[in-house]
């Protein structure tokens, strides 16, 4: 919308997200908020509390549990549900669980499809949810950059990118036909840095795994995997070692690589991100004469 003097970047993003959440709550018969326990979910939860205050948000939380999350995530999830007073629905693909599907034995692709994608569809159908709020952002990947805030799903839960509804102003079209559903992304215009800045500003709790600490990890295919529970079988010659690490994203522990870092607080994480940004920019925007950096040299050489 038109720029408004006086509201900061984060104020504006916050207001936009609240507006979107309210629009969902009033326009759909049975909305739900997908809750993945990560930092984006934590921000979504805070925004939902703000949107409906003093009422409790008018929709339940849905956690699609692959059964392979870090133990700290489960603890955190249950604590947040208690604190917010929101209903928490946990759904597991029982068929997958019965077959013992897991990333170590079946590979990441099958595991993800069965325990996440299929499980989500099962849950949406089981409870008849017609709108699902999720925390995806447009800066995450290329196809998301093109997806609408209100994104229509067909009866078979498919996204038809060629047939997206025009989305003008703040006038979201919430009308759907029977059997169709809507995925809604209130954080569409946020970046990863915005999310951390907001966590910092609002003092939002996140899973401690985001903060650097000594953790028992093994290096597999160049990735640091945390030995989170006894289901992880060590290969011959593999020896877990203690390293100061943290996680930038959280998912199933066997599929989530740690990074070595000393960032043990939200400000330290932001500093870590900024220094990565700034060093890039030093060579480009701020450092106008641009000598020195390898990138600059390449650039000069090429042009």
């Amino acid at each position, binding site marked *: *919308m*038109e*720029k*408004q*003097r*006086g*509201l*900061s*970047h*984060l104020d*504006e*993003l916050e*207001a936009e997200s*609240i*507006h979107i959440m*309210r*629009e969902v*709550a*009033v326009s759909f018969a049975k909305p739900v908020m997908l809750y993945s326990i990560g930092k984006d979910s934590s921000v979504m939860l805070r925004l939902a509390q*703000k949107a*409906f*205050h*003093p*009422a409790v948000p008018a929709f339940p939380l849905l956690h699609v549990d692959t059964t392979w999350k870090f133990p700290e995530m489960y603890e955190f999830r249950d604590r947040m549900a208690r604190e917010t007073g929101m209903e928490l629905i946990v759904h597991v693909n029982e068929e997958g669980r019965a077959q013992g599907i897991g990333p170590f034995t079946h590979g990441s692709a099958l595991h993800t499809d069965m325990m996440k994608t299929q499980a989500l569809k099962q849950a949406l159908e089981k409870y008849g949810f017609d709108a699902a709020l999720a925390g995806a952002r*447009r*800066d995450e990947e*290329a196809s998301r*950059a*093109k997806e609408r805030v209100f994104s229509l799903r067909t009866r078979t839960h498919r996204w038809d990118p060629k047939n997206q*509804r*025009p989305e*003008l*102003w703040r*006038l979201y*079209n919430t*009308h759907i*036909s029977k059997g*169709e559903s809507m995925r809604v992304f209130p954080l*569409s*215009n946020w*970046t990863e840095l915005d999310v951390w*800045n907001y966590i910092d*500003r609002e003092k939002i709790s996140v899973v401690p795994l985001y903060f650097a600490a000594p953790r028992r990890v093994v290096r597999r295919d160049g990735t640091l995997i945390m030995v989170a529970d006894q289901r992880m079988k060590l290969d011959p010659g593999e020896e877990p070692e203690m390293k100061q690490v943290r996680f930038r994203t959280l998912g199933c522990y066997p599929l989530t690589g740690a990074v070595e870092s000393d*960032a043990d607080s939200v*400000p*330290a994480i932001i*500093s870590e991100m*900024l*220094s990565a*940004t*700034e060093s*890039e*920019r030093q060579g*480009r*925007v*701020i450092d106008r004469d641009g000598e020195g950096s390898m*990138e600059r040299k*390449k650039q000069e050489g*090429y*042009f």
Partner: protein
Amino acid sequence: MSPSASTQEFRAYVNAREKRDILRFITCGSVDDGKSTLIGRLLYESRLIFQDQLARLEADSKRHGTLGGALDLALLVDGLQAEREQGITIDVAYRTFSTDKRSFIVADTPGHEQYTRNMATGASTTDLAIVLIDARKGVMPQTRRHTTILSLLGIRHVILAINKMDLVAWSQTVHDGIVEVYRDFAKRLDVTDLTCVPVSALTGDNVIKPSAAMGWHHGPTLLQALESADVATDRERLPFRMPVQWVNRPDTGFRGFAGTIASGLVRPGDSVLICPAHKLSTVSRIVTADGDLTCARAGQAVTLTLADEIDVSRGDVIASATHPPGQSDQFACYLIWMHENALLPNRPYLLKIGTHVVGAQITALKYKLNVESLERVAAKALELNDIAYCNVSLDRQIAFDPYRELRETGGFILIDRYTRATVGAGTIDFALRRASNLTRHKFAVDKPARSAQKNQKACVLWLTGLSGAGKSTTANAVEQRLHALGRHSYVLDGDNLRHGLTKDLGFIPADRVENVRRIAEVAKLFVDAGLIVLVSVISPFRDEREMARRMMEEGEFIEVFVDAPLEVCERRDPKGLYRKARAGELKNFTGIDSSYEPPEHPDIVLKTGERSVDELADQVIAYLRSRFEHPAG
């Protein structure tokens, strides 16, 4: 900023970043004007491009690049264009980048001529546009088209980036010539703030760094222009408006009205008017999860409580009592059509404005705008990407402001009632006063009185079906029976009416819609007169039959599907029309080259291929009897 920086330094830094605002802008230009390269360069120069991405870009440049293996920045954007070629993106992509001064959200729209719809989508949420021009080609039809759309959507700030200056020897004469032509065009539109920057996206001249080769340019570089553009409207200084999104009632003790403030300021104690109901009240509290506020401003999402127990619901606008919004149910507006199915005047749509959804019809297409020449062209229907000036009529009064004054209370979208698709977007120009100048006079003898006198229940039997299906034959038989039973009836026959009431109409879809509308209006009058009305008209489209249904009172409209297969109708061909249509002598013939949408839930289905006319007439009479315990029997 290093991880080891002190906490104090960190806070100062974060605070400074937090104070930056967001500039939302759109880039437009033709396919080969260098838009991808320009955006690629802005991303490359100002956003973090990590080592791995850079390595990939180098490899891609060697493989797909157009610069003989040199770093091709367009590929940063065109990673998506591969998908484009597979048809995914004829669509807006949103990208973000930031500098120390500002955060930016770019709506990147594809340059092809036919994507007005996507450009309008991208432009609607932005404050500024970069219009890109190839210095070798100058102002193109596409440039005019985009500028017109920008102007219609109220984008007042334009940066004209004249690109590929390296290919015209950095010539100021070329640059100035293009600027003059462009200014001349923009003058006729609502572009109030124009900044011109000669650039080369390829070499980076004047994109971020001032160009040594173009010392004659004294204005800002492109990035400087983006960083310094003052696009903040003074929405805070406009009268207060807040469309109510949701009524928050967690318990009986609290009743709050949640919404995003569209304009102005609000403080506890302010007098406000609830529109369109026109009820006065006073703001008690501004409630947020972070505590009550003493003042809230445009852009904020808040919850208001009022001093009085009055009825306020979603769709209402809480507004300044001293400067309330306008109120009407008829408007003159600009409309951008965004769907493959044409807009037909008088077809019923849903219209969403603010947080309100109402029924709407386009009652008159004043003209279609040729967006390149700005010429006004007559039109009977609107096709995808057409822009028109028209009158819209709503099924109830709404609060509004002209779009040029406030986007939030003056912009609307149109939604198809059946597919639920967003089919158009419009901007209110002004209210037509006619509705408020006309007052319905109430007459003492009314429909129930007239029906009672005739000892019957007035209704409409709407016979729809293909030409030759047997509509008129059946209507005739039914009316004979009603007449014999002493009932008062009338048949409105589509073919007969074309000699008078509808003789100015043809058979194109727009005329068919108007044909049905007129017949439905007449049927409504006859029902009001207390008659049993038989309508016999092909009425091929569901929307218009639905419109007719809604014009009557609940239960008065009986949809009768006169159902005969096309082959049967064609074999009968009582008027020889199918033969002519097949021979190509008759255009827009239903069932041949014009579609028929059968009813989804008809009240009566008459299989004319399987039963005799007498049996069918009996079936209708039996239905009327059971439906109304009709005195007809």
